[in-house]
């Protein structure tokens, strides 16, 4: 079961991501929330997180800075990250992919999120777990 951290400054978007994630049929444990990159770092430093779903444009600490900090920390460097953002610049998206980060564009469907997560963790879910 996956412990998920969702980092987005919009509480409505976090709720929507959680709702969509639940529709994916992927078994999950704890779902944790943070409203910016700094809060996200605090969560990942104190709790076990299997997968991070993060926005980019956030106050206090943006998603790029958070990703850099997570990847510089040997204890968290291998944590898979999916950026869920309105970003459409291929230049920025390629830069994210070069960091080993996956990308899902807002707005997204449960199918796209499910496919991305499945590809990352390499397990096929049947949607009934």
């Amino acid at each position: 079961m996956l412990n998920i951290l969702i980092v987005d400054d919009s509480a409505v978007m976090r709720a929507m991501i959680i709702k969509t994630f639940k529709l994916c049929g992927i078994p999950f444990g704890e779902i944790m929330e943070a409203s910016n990159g700094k809060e996200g770092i605090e969560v990942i430093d104190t709790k076990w997180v299997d997968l991070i779903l993060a926005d980019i444009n956030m106050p206090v600490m943006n998603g790029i800075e958070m990703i850099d900090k997570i990847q510089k920390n040997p204890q968290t460097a291998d944590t898979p990250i999916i950026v869920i953002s309105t970003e459409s610049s291929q230049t920025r998206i390629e830069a994210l992919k070069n960091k080993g980060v996956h990308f899902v564009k807002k707005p997204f469907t449960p199918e796209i999120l499910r496919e991305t997560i499945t590809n990352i963790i390499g397990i096929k879910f049947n949607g009934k777990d």
Partner: protein
Amino acid sequence: MEKIENLLLNAATNAFEQLCFMFSSPDDEDTEKNLHTWVASIVNFSGPFSGKLIVRAHKGLLNVIASNMLGEDTSTTKQQMDALGEVSNVICGSVLPQIAGVAEVFNLEAPKILENSEPVSPQNGEKMVSVSMTLDEGQVELQFFMKNGAALLKEV
């Protein structure tokens, strides 16, 4: 300019459909729109050109937007403002690369909410495109402002 209008309308249609499950209606323009209180979300952006997108919705529409996004029957005022901001952010993020090209990089600021808003006129050489869309639940108005983008306007 007409192409930007179409891009804006398509981006808004997709955002409302996919985020809020709200669909365009062929109905005529809202004849009571002057009676509504309007709330606006403003997204400022900078990049190859700068400007802002303003998405205005009448207050009665906000609960539908937020409730549909949340999958709940009701929503708080805070959630409604948050939801309108997120929709405007998605529309802006979608339309900019279609105007400037996907290689260009834009920085979008966090949406700002303005209650009791009126339509805004372009200032200081800004170019403005405005469109309105009728959803089943009511009308939404969008204003897109560009600075330093005259060359792009000729191309699109």
